[in-house]
């Protein structure tokens, strides 16, 4: 039932607003609204009840194991939330003069420095509001760098075929052509193909390491050399940082630009879609191009860098400070972990993934890349089950929901047929990993003995399998009042 269906004309909420409408007669009537917007009219209790019950229809980290590969669904410490919601932060206007905003700016400056240290980069900007915007900023900086060097012909961005969709989409948005580089069966980039692809047209290569295939790119130094040799720059997609935090730093691998997903590695909650933060870090030579705002420090305190002092900056990415509240959460998380805690993150995320992979092998599941160490995630391919039993990866995913587990990422990376990309994260206990593997095994048994129960799953959720084709064909994107 939609909130609109709880609505009755004339029903009023709690005493949330001024009690009567003030005079608007000084505004010309042709600029005023004539009708009332068709918003729901419900009591405060109806709203509270509706949204409480609605929330219970979600799986979430706080309710379920959520091994969604590439998404790093780890525990979001509750302290990060409550401390970010202190009135001193929450009620601060973004245009408050710096002198009156020192507490916030201090946190942001330290966050910049901690990210530099953790990533091995020379400087960081906290401006981007998600990973994809971080990518945008990174590629725009690569573009700006080449242009600043009067190196105008670089029109191509290289992207491995295993890359996340945001990588090619970003390159296009920045005005580049995208060239895909194939991946070998062992998960490494095809170096020969890369060698052939690079040239004076190469602006840069976007790479995530470990890759979306869940393995560490061992040839990373060679790749960096190849790209740098032709004058290209190396972009690091930081979505998989949880695998290497404190173990190896992108800067030390030779990357020139990097975005981090603070909502992954640094545990800000994903909020059912966002907000995130895609802070970008750069090597020395790219510092002048960083997006604004940036926080600097001098004897008088902390300041936002002024536009006139950053003439080569690619500019702004938002009206104000990016996703400030998310940045505060990440700051608190990093301070809670500290340097040792950071290395522990990757250690246990990797331990969990490799343990699950070993268990998957033991239980007879086919691994996409069987002979490598898993990073913080690994891939099972269900192509045998799909072809022999006609039970697909999607069916497995839906049936997992019945058994109390959020499904792993399905059908990504696109290279691997019928795949499940499984990322347990460090915050899950062994019991959860074992329970998940038991569930997978149970589903395979069902697929053999009673495939119907799998192919028509889920059975125990608020709705059964939904008709996506109908959704796209008979578009119903908003409730409208009856005419």
């Amino acid at each position, binding site marked *: 039932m939609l909130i609109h269906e709880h609505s009755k004309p004339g029903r009023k909420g709690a005493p949330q607003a001024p009690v009567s409408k003030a005079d608007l007669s000084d505004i010309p009537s042709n600029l005023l609204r004539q009708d009332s*917007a068709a918003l729901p009219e419900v009591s405060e209790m109806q709203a509270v009840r509706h949204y409480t019950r609605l929330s219970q229809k979600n799986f979430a980290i706080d309710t379920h194991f959520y091994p969604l590969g590439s998404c790093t669904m780890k525990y979001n410490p509750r302290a990060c939330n409550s401390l970010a919601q202190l009135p001193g932060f929450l009620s601060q206007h973004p245009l408050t003069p710096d002198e009156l905003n020192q507490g916030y700016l201090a946190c942001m400056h330290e966050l910049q420095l901690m990210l530099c240290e953790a990533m091995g980069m020379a400087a960081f900007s906290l401006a981007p509001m998600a990973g994809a915007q971080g990518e945008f900023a990174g590629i725009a900086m690569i573009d700006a760098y080449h242009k600043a060097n009067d190196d105008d012909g670089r029109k191509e961005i290289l992207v491995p075929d295993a890359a996340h969709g945001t990588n090619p989409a970003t390159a296009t948005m920045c005005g580049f052509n995208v060239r895909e580089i194939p991946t070998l069966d062992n998960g490494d980039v095809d170096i020969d193909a890369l060698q052939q692809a690079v040239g004076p047209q190469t602006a840069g290569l976007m790479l995530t390491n470990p890759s979306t295939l869940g393995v560490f790119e061992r040839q990373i130094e060679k790749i960096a050399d190849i790209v740098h040799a032709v004058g290209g720059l190396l972009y690091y997609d930081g979505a998989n940082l949880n695998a290497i935090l404190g173990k190896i730093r992108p800067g030390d691998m030779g990357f020139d630009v990097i975005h981090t997903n603070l909502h992954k590695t640094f545990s800000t909650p994903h909020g059912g879609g966002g907000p995130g933060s895609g802070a970008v870090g750069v090597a020395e030579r790219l510092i002048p191009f960083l997006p604004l705002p940036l926080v600097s420090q001098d004897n008088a305190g902390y300041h936002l860098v002024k536009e006139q002092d950053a003439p080569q900056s690619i500019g702004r990415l938002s009206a104000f400070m990016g996703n400030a509240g998310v940045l505060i959460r990440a700051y608190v998380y990093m301070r809670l972990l500290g340097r040792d805690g950071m290395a522990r993150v990757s250690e246990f995320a990797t331990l969990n993934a490799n343990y699950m992979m070993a268990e998957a092998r033991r239980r007879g599941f086919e691994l996409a890349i069987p002979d490598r160490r898993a990073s913080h995630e690994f891939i099972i391919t269900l192509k045998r089950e799909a072809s022999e039993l006609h039970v697909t990866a999607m069916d497995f995913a839906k049936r997992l*929901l019945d058994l109390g587990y959020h499904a792993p990422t399905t059908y990504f990376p696109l290279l691997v047929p019928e795949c499940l990309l499984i990322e347990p994260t460090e915050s899950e206990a062994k019991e959860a990993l074992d329970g998940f593997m038991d569930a997978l095994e149970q589903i395979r048994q069902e697929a053999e003995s009673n495939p119907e129960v799998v192919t028509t799953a889920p059975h125990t959720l608020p709705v059964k399998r939904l008709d996506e084709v109908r959704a796209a064909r008979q578009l119903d994107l908003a409730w409208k009042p009856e005419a």
Partner: protein
Amino acid sequence: MPFIPHTEEEISQMLEVIGIDSTEALFDEIPSHLRTSGLDGIPEGMTEMEISRLMHKRASQNTDAVCFIGAGAYEHHIPAAVWQLTTRGEYYTAYTPYQAEASQGTLQLTYEFQSMMTALTDMDVSNASLYDGASALAEAVLMAIRGNRKSKSRKVLIPRTVHPTYRKTTETIVTGQNIDLLEVDYDLAAGTVQLDALKQAATDAGGDITAVVIQQPNFFGALEDIDAITDWAHENRILVISITNPLSLAVLKPPGQWGSENTGVDIACGDGQPLGAPMSCGGPYYGFLCSTSALVRQMPGRIVGRTIDVDGKEGFVLTLQAREQHIRRSKATSNICTNQGLVVTASTIHMAILGPEGLENTAAACHANTTSLVAQLTDIDGVRYAFSSPYFHEAVLVLDQPVTAVLEALAERGILGGYDLGAEYPELGNALLVCATELRSEEDINAYQAALEAALDVETRQKEIA
């Protein structure tokens, strides 16, 4: 170990299953000479008790002066229920609802959000959010370029009455795609852009214009002549992109009805912050984006659709995914993936609790308070309202003294007096943008008046002395 549940015994069991001796071996594919030795620049971990103390101290270092700044971020009353519900773990710690059946909470709520935004804007469709208002404008421009098949010019008119950082953000984001953003000046007396100026700009640009952007109320708080501009644009096959404060739409003409015949704009965007997001140092807010049905396949970002399950029961899914990066990759409508879902959650609950009447009363109270503020401040010698246009809940005042020093003096008296327009609009002189939302009481406004009188006096005296 903070946030890690492993016991020593389990670690050994797990290592044994993997077939290695220590967790170190897990990293044996990483070239050893590249390994990090330790993150010395990062402090040691803290307990929650310690970080809590630190953050309370930091938070208290921020000002608690009474805020009369607007300029795109507004302090409104947010019902207590809104964030108590929004931060429920089920909303707060879910991912993007890829598994629809396990995400009906977020999906239905997003559908309700889309319904509310189309109602407020009176547009056909809405997406599930973009990052913020400024980046939403950039996406709206890109969408218009893709959507206006009749125009080849890739030229977009943007009046200088559009929020300066919106213009800058758009510049940053569209710059790689060969698009011309043509700034159009405003009328100094009216504080709005004149239709003639737009016409002239179009002519100067060779006639073929892809889109025009109009902000209502504009950055100065003043009200633009939206009907005439919309009519002219549509007559010239120019798409109209509106930027509106969604709260203002409770009382102002919605974009879907702009034009003398209420034909409406093509794309409506803006920042959702006034609907339930605290100012929070600048974010997270969210950008909303609505359009006509004709343009729906050009939309960036997530869209939720209502459908049925195998039993015919109503349910909700992400739809039209073929527009998006994870399917269409380099040909997607945008690279956006993560959006601002949680803020949208808050905003949806906020709108549901306030309801149409609550929003109307709030919007009207903002208008009334700003009207009082302007009246009281312009009563002071040396303070005048800058323009002739009516305004919604912000207004530009011109002082007879430099703004910077006055703002500092006000801050010492516990008043954040407004936004200094000097850097962006030097032609306005000592201009200050002020705003009084429904939260500003009579007492607050009197305090501002008194503080400004005192500040100007001191300034005057100091000038006299010097």
